């Protein structure tokens, strides 16, 4: 098995203005993330808003330069690759198909654009590949001439997937791809993504705040908190035995449809994480019910065991 993506100590810092007289604050959106993902795998990344998951996705897509660390895609350093080479390897599917598709273009133009941008695909061949890709995502030739406004949300997301796959990339970064969709349409899109992965041997980075969706599609899951991975494990292991207190709180917050079951007390308190003001020691300690005096002082080392990584002193025992 080859490694599709390798991320080593990736960082992204933003200089945040703090008003007229305040000191400029530095936001550490991604604060030292490392992982590698095997070809054909699906890494689900979960966490609350502001944890840095979308920033990480944008860096891996090359849409945003990293402030530190390195990102290797298919063994090559992303920063040394030109835009066309990158586009042949890695492609995005974003959350909102209403804003990620050009409203003035036809479906055919939208899906054909990555091919046109490569500059070396003849028009006739381009047309054939677009039609083939549309058929593959479940859209008929009659959809090709339409504009996004004439399509439903689910159809638009199919167009976005066709555009992502038309260059036959190795890796697709899906950032909340079903969050704007209704549940019946979400199921269609998740099934389609699963089929395409099996058929085309794709690797997915799948970012979502919906843990149930991630449990369904991912082969492994990383839990992100204030710019770091606090736990990463094969999906079944993570859901069966979450090791980090934050992972446990996130899993507790999943509302499965069991009539009469209570709304869980997630136990995270009222403090809200702020990436401009990352706590000392373990960054989760102000919200952790199990925090010990040392947690505020020492950043916990990552513990590796049975294919699981967890950054918590309690997991060492």
């Amino acid at each position, binding site marked *: 098995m080859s490694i599709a993506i390798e991320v080593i100590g990736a960082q992204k810092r933003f200089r945040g203005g703090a008003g007229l007289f305040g000191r400029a604050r530095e936001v550490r959106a991604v604060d030292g993330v490392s992982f590698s993902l095997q070809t054909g795998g699906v890494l689900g990344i979960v966490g*609350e*808003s502001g944890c840095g998951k979308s920033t990480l996705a944008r860096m891996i897509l090359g849409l945003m330069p990293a402030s530190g660390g390195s990102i290797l895609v298919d063994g090559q350093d992303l920063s040394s690759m030109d835009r066309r080479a990158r586009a042949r390897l890695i492609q995005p599917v974003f959350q909102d198909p209403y804003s990620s598709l050009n409203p003035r273009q036809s479906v055919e133009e939208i899906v054909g654009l990555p091919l046109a941008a490569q500059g070396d695909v003849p028009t006739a061949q381009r047309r054939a590949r677009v039609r083939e890709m549309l058929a593959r995502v479940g859209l008929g030739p009659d959809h090709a001439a339409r504009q996004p406004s004439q399509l*439903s*949300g*689910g159809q638009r997301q199919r167009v976005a997937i066709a555009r992502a796959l038309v260059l036959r990339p190795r890796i697709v970064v899906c950032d909340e791809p079903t969050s704007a969709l*209704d*549940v*019946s*349409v*979400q*199921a*269609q899109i*998740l*099934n389609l993504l*699963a*089929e395409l992965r099996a058929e085309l041997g794709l690797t997915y980075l799948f970012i979502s*705040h*919906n*843990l*149930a*969706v991630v*449990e*369904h599609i991912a082969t492994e899951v990383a839990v992100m908190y204030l710019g770091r991975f606090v736990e990463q494990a094969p*999906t*079944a292991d993570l*859901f069966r035995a979450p090791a980090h207190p934050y992972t446990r*709180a*996130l899993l*507790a*917050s*999943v*509302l*499965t*449809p*069991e*009539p*009469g*079951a*209570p*709304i*869980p*007390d*997630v136990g*995270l308190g*009222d403090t*809200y994480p702020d990436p401009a003001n990352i706590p000392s020691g373990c960054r989760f300690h102000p919200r952790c019910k199990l925090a010990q005096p040392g947690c505020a002082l020492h950043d916990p080392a990552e513990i590796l065991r049975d294919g699981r990584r967890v950054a918590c002193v309690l997991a060492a025992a």
Partner: protein
Amino acid sequence: MTVLEISDLYVRFGEILAVRGISLTIERGQTHCLVGESGCGKSVTALATMGLLARGGVRTATRLQFQGADIAALDETAMSRLRGDKMAMIFQEPMTSLNPAYTVGSQMAEVLRRHRRLSRRAALGRAAELLARVGITAPGLRLGQFPHQLSGGLRQRVMIAMALLCDPELLIADEPTTALDVTVQAQILRLLQELQRELGLALLLITHDLGIVARMAHRVSVMYAGEIVESGPVADVFLRPTHPYTRGLLDCIPVPGKVAPGAPLGSIPGVVPRIRAGFAGCGFRDRCAQAVTDCAMGTPLQQASADHAYLCRLPREWTRDVA
């Protein structure tokens, strides 16, 4: 005691029928969930009940009663006296329903000055009391802040506090936690349950999330294309779903541990139809695997059990037998 009773409510926008003859009741201290996908008419039902339909929306109903009194005939002045007083509503995105130019305190005080004619001082006192009640620490500080200075969860708490200012009997909450993180969502839902127990609120909760319905509702009504296609006590509807749409919806949602790795989720093919005047037959028939020719004719409301009804011509044994 019945707080809200709606019978045969219709809402049309020009040629489009958004709500088609729905009926529901909510009792004091109970939660009735309206669940369905976008465009099914659940939000329009709430807005029609509050008399807040957008221009061009026409409402008719054979009965629209709040605490036993007819509110269908009330004019705008009378209705606006009721809104924010005994009938309150909270929306999905608190950032768009709070005024960004005024502090939390002045927005809350405004409600009390208008409905209760309280002095500014007394109004701010009551506002601080309610902020504390919804779990906001340092209410005095928050009263002086603007909405953009608060996190999403805090804003939604402020909205809830604002809705409770005049001791409402009925609270309509339209996707109150959809814009929030799951961790904050749980806190807000627990708060709503607590307030309900304490104040005896009747809650009409509108959501697309079946997990929220399962845990919050006493009764649930499933909406599709402007109609309630199934309704009953929440356990009956979830454990013995009878309408093919309800069954399909429950199969669509990923539940950790339920679907084997690699197995596809259930899905409902096709898209929701737009219902125009003159539409006849079952609105779901084009997407229904069990549809028969007669589904193009009227759909009868059948009882699945004494308190559990579904809008479909198929016998309940049929719809439930399909794996």
